[in-house]
């Protein structure tokens, strides 16, 4: 059997011992030793869609950008409408290089205190956080302060029972909070940041808490029978089913938001006014259509189609797979990748090359599993 282990210099998460004590298999990821699974990827994945799963995402970067003009400064490097983002609201956005290439995807929350200076809380990917911090320091004017909250950890609680679980350990904390809204509460004397959202397609919360006491929060959550610890393996299969891109795989610096299916992150006002990195390129893509697009694929049969596989129309290579694997809730393999735009319509039949053989694919609209976010007006 072939072996895929790598030895690397890895840092430890605040909950490193906690994971190992629960039987986690640890792997190097984003510069940290991280749990890839506990009881098994499939079981963990299915548990999240039925109950609630607890993910340690403390490897991610938590940043504060603060000062007069912070929204305007961020708008030069993010294509979203930061100025119109109200306090307590969260927006998905993308950090853009000067040519419009995607440096990272992130969540921005307006955490301006009443009467205080403009203040934004950013959560960025773990693998890119140091580059992001350097980029932000370079592109934000001196009057805007950038603080890296490296003394805080981040947990994600996801699943249909997440809200009930949070209510039982922090009563009232998430009252009235809908999808893409955030708030702060006090828990055991510390500030608990709560953002309603996540990376699974299910209802859930991202919880920011002091790293030193993170184990207490994790213990309180895991004590609930409805909650199980979930590793990176299931995190990946869950987000793939939810049609959510993974930076470094479905998005990288050679791609812009229009190609990557994130045109929605370029708000209407910004399309009209431009004024952000790569605006010209993006507005051209929006007007004429990009040459290639990120789409989803249903896979016929049982052979998993994985990242790197060539996509063919007849004998012509027309794209490549950027994410793929077996989807436990779908019960079949699924994939995402880039194809020339003329082949991107849902229902288009294509093929992937896997170990010298052709596997039939059909372009599929995302997500593969419907999202069940807690939106206003939703059941």
């Amino acid at each position, binding site marked *: *059997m072939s072996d895929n282990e790598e030895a690397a210099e890895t840092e430890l998460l605040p909950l490193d011992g906690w994971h190992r004590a629960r039987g986690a298999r640890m792997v190097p990821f984003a510069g940290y030793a991280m749990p890839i699974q506990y009881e098994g990827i499939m079981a963990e994945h299915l548990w999240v869609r039925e109950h609630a799963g607890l993910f340690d995402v403390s490897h991610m970067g938590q940043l504060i950008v603060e000062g007069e003009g912070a929204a305007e400064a961020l708008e030069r490097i993010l294509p979203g409408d930061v100025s119109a983002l109200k306090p307590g609201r969260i927006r998905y956005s993308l950090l853009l290089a000067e040519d419009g290439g995607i440096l990272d995807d992130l969540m921005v929350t307006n955490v301006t205190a009443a009467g205080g200076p403009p203040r934004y809380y950013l959560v960025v990917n773990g693998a890119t956080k140091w580059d992001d911090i350097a980029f932000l320091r370079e592109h934000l004017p001196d009057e805007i302060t950038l603080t890296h909250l490296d003394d805080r950890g981040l947990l994600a609680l996801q699943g249909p029972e997440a809200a009930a679980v949070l209510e039982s350990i922090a009563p009232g904390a998430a009252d009235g909070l809908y999808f893409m809204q955030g708030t702060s509460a006090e828990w055991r004397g510390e500030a608990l940041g709560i953002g309603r959202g996540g990376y699974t397609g299910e209802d859930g919360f991202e919880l920011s808490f002091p790293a030193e006491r993170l184990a207490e929060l994790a213990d309180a959550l895991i004590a609930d029978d409805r909650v199980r610890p979930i590793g990176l393996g299931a995190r*990946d299969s869950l987000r793939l089913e939810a049609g959510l891109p993974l930076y470094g795989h479905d998005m990288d610096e050679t791609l812009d938001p229009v190609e990557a299916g994130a045109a929605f992150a370029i708000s209407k006002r910004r399309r009209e006014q431009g004024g952000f990195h790569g605006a010209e390129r993006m507005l051209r893509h929006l007007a004429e259509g990009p040459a290639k697009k990120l789409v989803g694929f249903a896979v016929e049969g049982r052979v998993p189609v994985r990242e790197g596989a060539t996509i063919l129309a007849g004998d012509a290579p027309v794209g490549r797979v950027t994410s793929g694997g077996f989807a436990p809730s779908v019960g079949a393999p699924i994939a995402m990748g880039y194809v020339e735009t003329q082949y991107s319509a849902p229902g288009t039949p294509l093929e992937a090359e896997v170990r010298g053989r052709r596997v039939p694919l059909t372009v599929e609209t995302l997500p593969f599993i419907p999202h069940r976010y807690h939106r206003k007006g939703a059941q």
Partner: protein
Amino acid sequence: MTRYFTQEHEWIEVDGDTATVGITDYAQEQLGDIVFVEVPGAGTAVTKGGEAAVVESVKAASDVYSPVSGTVTEGNPALEDDPALVNTDPQGEGWFFKLQIADASELEGLMDEVAYKAFCDSL
């Protein structure tokens, strides 16, 4: 019948000049949930240490090597509909393929059950 083991966590059960090959319990545990298995068809020539089959877990594909050289007589048909058999019964019903052994001397150097257990303990 005697069972031998490789350092790549394959087992081979020898019966005269034919044998059955699979992966060990240690291997299936390392792989996690198995979602797909590609076994060689009858007539395929395999070489000692060469790729003979592929086993896919949720996260990744892994190669399975043949412990000895020979000709495949049968790939396990049950694994097509139920790849999870490799997880539930890796050393029984979850066998991968049967073969005609070309050179029995290639069995020398393979581990017996005791040696394999010691090998796993050292990992």
